[in-house]
């Protein structure tokens, strides 16, 4: 814990924030996207925006694992969970995500579906061992961080001959999502979103390393600073981005050197390469179909692939009409731009996925930041 507390030191934070304010050019605005939900959470949890000058703007990116899963895949999971003889294992955040019609894994669980919340992929394997007469479906979601643990259990299941264990694979890739955002018409042509730089993922980068980001630094001329999830990491990364922008540089810099190597975790990458292959295209909530942005299980592990073992229809379902999660995930809109934010859509009754996970922009903003809007309304009313 001492090690963690060192990265939450308020005095040091004020010093870095002071330096950032000094170096940031008052004649311009800085638009920085934190890709990861972990950063979104840290920014709101620690009130980092309070320490920054007003012309540095943080834009929340799509890096929230449960937020980007499209409605169709969620509906598939709900149907799988209701299939007789199936135990669906899922990470906790996933359970409350609502479909457009308001259904969720938690709701079908209360109506009798056997759904188990697990903390790690190996628990799903244990459940398979303990229930030989049931078929286990592990709802695998997430970016490069959660992919290696899924690869491990698939390999173990094969070794153990656990024929009742399957994985419904929804793993997605970070670099292709960032490229997709930078290629989107809103940024390229319309100029609706200004993006001057990225705070690069923390945990994802421990796996993939810092090299994969070099492509779009080169291609799009936007600086990337990889940062840890602690608040000092984030504020230091912001200072590093401001410096790059001021100096007209666009480089990959690594603030998170205590965990991220240029080549990443080669053992984990090899595991993933053994078990998974690229999908030609995959739908992301908010981003639409993104080419080569997700993984599927290789044919040599087809026995453990829920998509091979079960009838899983390709569903393309629209989001709730009023929900702005899509635009928010692309950084085009802020949660407060959404008409139903904080009124119809709240953490108690989420309409969109961004309101469910603590890594989602709407939930983070609702839980930690909405009082600022009230304060500014008060101030405006007072004038």
């Amino acid at each position, binding site marked *: *814990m001492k090690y*963690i507390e060192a990265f*939450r*030191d*308020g005095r040091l*934070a*004020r010093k870095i*924030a002071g330096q950032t304010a000094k170096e940031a050019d008052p004649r311009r605005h800085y638009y920085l996207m934190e890709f*990861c*939900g*972990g950063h979104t*959470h840290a920014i*709101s*949890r*620690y*009130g*980092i*925006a*309070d*320490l920054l000058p007003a012309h540095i703007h943080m834009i929340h990116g799509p*890096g*929230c*694992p*449960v937020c980007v899963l499209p409605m169709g895949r969620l509906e598939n999971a709900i149907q799988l969970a209701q299939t007789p003889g199936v135990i669906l294992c899922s*990470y*906790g*955040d*996933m*359970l*409350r995500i609502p479909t457009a019609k308001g259904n969720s894994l938690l709701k079908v669980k209360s109506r009798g579906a056997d759904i188990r*919340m697990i*903390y790690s992929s190996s628990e799903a394997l244990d459940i398979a061992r303990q229930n030989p007469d049931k078929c286990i479906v592990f709802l695998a*979601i*997430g*970016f490069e*961080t*959660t992919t290696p643990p899924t690869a491990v259990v698939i390999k173990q299941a094969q070794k153990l001959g656990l024929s009742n264990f399957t994985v419904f694979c929804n793993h997605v890739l970070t670099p292709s999502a960032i490229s997709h955002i930078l290629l989107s018409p809103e940024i390229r042509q319309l100029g609706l979103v200004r993006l001057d730089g990225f705070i690069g993922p923390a*945990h*994802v980068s421990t796996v993939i390393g810092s090299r994969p980001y070099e492509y779009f630094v080169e291609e799009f001329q936007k600086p990337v600073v990889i940062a840890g999830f602690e*608040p*000092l990491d984030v504020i230091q990364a912001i200072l590093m981005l401001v410096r790059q922008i001021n100096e007209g540089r666009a480089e990959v810099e690594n603030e998170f050197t205590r965990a991220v190597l240029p080549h990443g975790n080669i053992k984990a990458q090899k595991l993933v390469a053994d078990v998974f292959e690229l999908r030609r295209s995959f739908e992301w909530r908010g981003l639409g179909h993104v080419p080569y942005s997700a993984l599927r299980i290789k044919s040599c592990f087809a026995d453990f692939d829920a998509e091979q073992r079960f009838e899983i229809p390709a569903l393309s379902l629209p989001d709730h009409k009023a929900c702005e999660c899509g635009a928010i995930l692309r950084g085009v809109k802020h949660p407060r731009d959404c008409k139903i934010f904080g009124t119809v859509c*709240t*953490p*108690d009754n989420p309409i969109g996925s961004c309101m469910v*996970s*603590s*890594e989602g922009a709407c939930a983070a903003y*609702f*839980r*930690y*930041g*909405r*009082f600022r809007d*009230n304060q500014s309304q008060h101030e405006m009313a007072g004038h």
Partner: protein
Amino acid sequence: MQSSANKKHAYTRTLDFKTGCVEMMHGSGGRAMAQLIDQLFMTAFDNDFLRQMNDQASFTSSGGRMVMATDSHVITPLFFPGGDIGCLSVHGTINDVVMAGAKPLYLSAGFILEEGLPLGDLKRIVESMAAAARVIPVPIITGDTKVVERGSGDGVFITTTGIGMIPENVFISSERAKPGDNILISGTIGDHGIAVMLAREDFAFQSSLESDTASLHDLVSVMVEAVPGIHVLRDPTRGGVAAALNEIAQQSGTGMMLFEERIPVKPAVSAACEFLGFDPMYVANEGKLIAVCAPEDTDKLLDTMRAHPLGCNAAVIGEIIADSHSFVQMKTRFGGTHVVDWLSGDQLPRIC
């Protein structure tokens, strides 16, 4: 008068607490139930009220303001580091009674037992309840037992109701929190929730953390004696300190500003929360209280709390502010501010 527990029943075997289990007949109103009551509950809770063997307990009241609180207790596992469902079911209700500044007088206990519960476990639970009630001391003066079929319960559910008497000059109620008041906590937060979770889930790490389950009657009695004008008392159980503070803010129509660095959290709780992606502000406590008092009373109240074994880590964690939105805000250690909101449902671990 000889206790009925000492009578020998020649026609029936004594309960087998070593290998026996709760059976449906233990709730059917017949001889087996009478035997369970006699050999277990009467023996453990023994007092004059129970010995009358009526369907109800009668007692005289001395007038004045009484309080009554009821609480149902369900917990997995039934036995956890630092306690069990038995003592928890006494502490929980007693703490609700004493949060009005009251002196607790009587308890009732209702049991729903699941068929198959080992009688040995039930005995441990009942004896733990009896011990918890005896130290206060508050007699358990009436009770009830039902048995449900296997699969319809979770071992044992216990509902307790408590009655207490409020001293004349004490008016503790959450709507009395006023801007300028200070907010105090009696000790480290999150101990119970994390201890139970670590006992329940098979995590790859261990700790010596224990639940803080305790009866706060004595702490409250010294606090009320020192500062009869305490505005609010609340025990932050389910939903943690965050939920309790939001309730007070809403009921009093005020806001709050907390200071993260002043909130006492054990390193083990902090570490487990880090690991699981939880926030200790939302983790349950069973032996802590939040107090709100006027600024001029704060030092005296804090000193009184710190002088008591259950309040030795007490701290002033924030203050009541004027805010028509009743937001509970926290100044983070880092220097920023955020809202400490209600939780929706359970805390769920983060994925990334």
